């Protein structure tokens, strides 16, 4: 019998594929879910209006746009709902089925949540990219190291959120 680590690694592609299929099972729900994460855009329009006649506490409209778009991006890529999923499964007793499989439940939760990220990115990344380039290019850093560290920071932020919700 293979080691647990080897078996887990071999199972990852299938788990990811199933996770993606679950994410897109309901098309309408998927769109509504995307729309519910757009609160930073509302705040952005509010604060850019406030700063339209002059900078507010040093923040120009472009800085507000940059800030809220960064917030939108981070929220889209780091948010997860694993605590609610676990709570529901414990309450309904369906976690038992997860525990009967020879793979740690943490792995299956992780993979199913990671599988949703590309779909969140599909909405968030183009929107953020276009708006930053067209209206706030000067407000974002051009430092190569900071830009390079950003994906790592987001990955770590996702892991911290996920681990806290799992704990």
């Amino acid at each position: 019998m293979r080691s647990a680590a080897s078996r887990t690694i071999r199972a990852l592609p299938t788990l990811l594929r199933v996770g993606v299929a679950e994410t897109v099972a309901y098309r309408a729900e998927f769109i509504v879910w995307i729309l519910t994460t757009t609160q930073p855009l509302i705040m952005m329009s509010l604060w850019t209006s406030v700063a339209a006649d002059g900078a507010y506490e040093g923040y120009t409209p472009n800085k507000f746009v940059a800030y809220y778009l960064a917030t939108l991006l981070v929220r889209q890529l780091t948010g997860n709902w694993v605590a609610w999923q676990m709570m529901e499964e414990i309450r309904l007793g369906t976690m038992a089925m997860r525990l009967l499989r020879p793979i740690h439940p943490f792995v299956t939760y992780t993979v199913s949540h990671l599988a949703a990220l590309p779909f969140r990115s599909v909405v968030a990344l183009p929107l953020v990219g276009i708006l930053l380039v067209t209206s706030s290019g000067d407000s974002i850093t051009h430092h190569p190291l900071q830009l390079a560290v950003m994906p790592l920071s987001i990955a770590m932020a996702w892991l911290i959120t996920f681990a806290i919700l799992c704990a």
Partner: protein
Amino acid sequence: MIIAKNLKKHFKVHKRPPGFGAAVKSLFSRTYETVKAVDGVSFTIERGERVGFLGPNGAGKTTTLKVLSGLLHPTSGEVTVEGFVPFERSAELLSKITLVMGQKSQLIWDLPPSETYAMNRAVFDVPQAQFDATLRELDELLELGPLVSKPTRQLSLGERMKCELAAALLHQPTTLFLDEPTIGLDVAMQVAIRDFIRAYNLKHSATVLLTSHYMDDVVALCPRIIVIDRGTLIHDGDLKGLIKQMDPDKRVSFTTASVIDDETLAKLGHVHSKEGKRVTLKVSESELPSTVSYILATLKASDLAIEDPPLEDILRTMFGKHSAAALEVEAP
């Protein structure tokens, strides 16, 4: 092989009276009571046996199955399944067992069962060729056909249960814990599931521990039964032995050309039921040949059937006696 020695599982349960005041008070001070769900149960089940695990609601059947499958830690006692301690949840043990719960689903609700099958193949590390062969076999036995490509949420209860069984058996477990696998199914589906379980048991020499409230399941599948009530074992042995011990009389049913008076019937045996011309008598085994001869020759009866008492009646009597005994013990 399954071994349980003096197995106990006690739960600490919070109790409070109804009402707002009690709800607020329970935030600061709580009263607990200990529920002995399983209280000193011992048994051994050999490889390939089919055993019925019976008891009234709340007897401790599902708790025992959960301990045996590693979902719960026992409070005390020893348990091994296929040589492993279940609550250690070793991957090797998990690959050898399965638990099917009629009221809980392992199928992914929004996706077709085929996706759950693919996931199980991956996590149980089943080689593709073996997976394909097993799925073909299960498809043949359970007649899954197009069901595997319909979203689980759109399957009927019976269809879902067939797909559940397939999902639970794709890794070819050798120990099956089946907790009411036929609950809510129609008679035809119940028979199909029973036939399938028997065929799987024979083909793979799999050990089957079955709980069911449908006595037909138990009679059809399990030569041996274990009965528990209030967490304690009250019978472990073969089904026929239990019936003989609890109620050795046979049920003789027949239909007569005209209604027979009660006095004549009373001479033949205890009248169990009488609906017009259809009569059922309780007759002891020693008097059976003479009684049957009389019924056929003198009463000119037709449609005669000789049966053991229904298992439901036996268990009702058994649980009644056990409850009465328990009350006597508990009484001050």
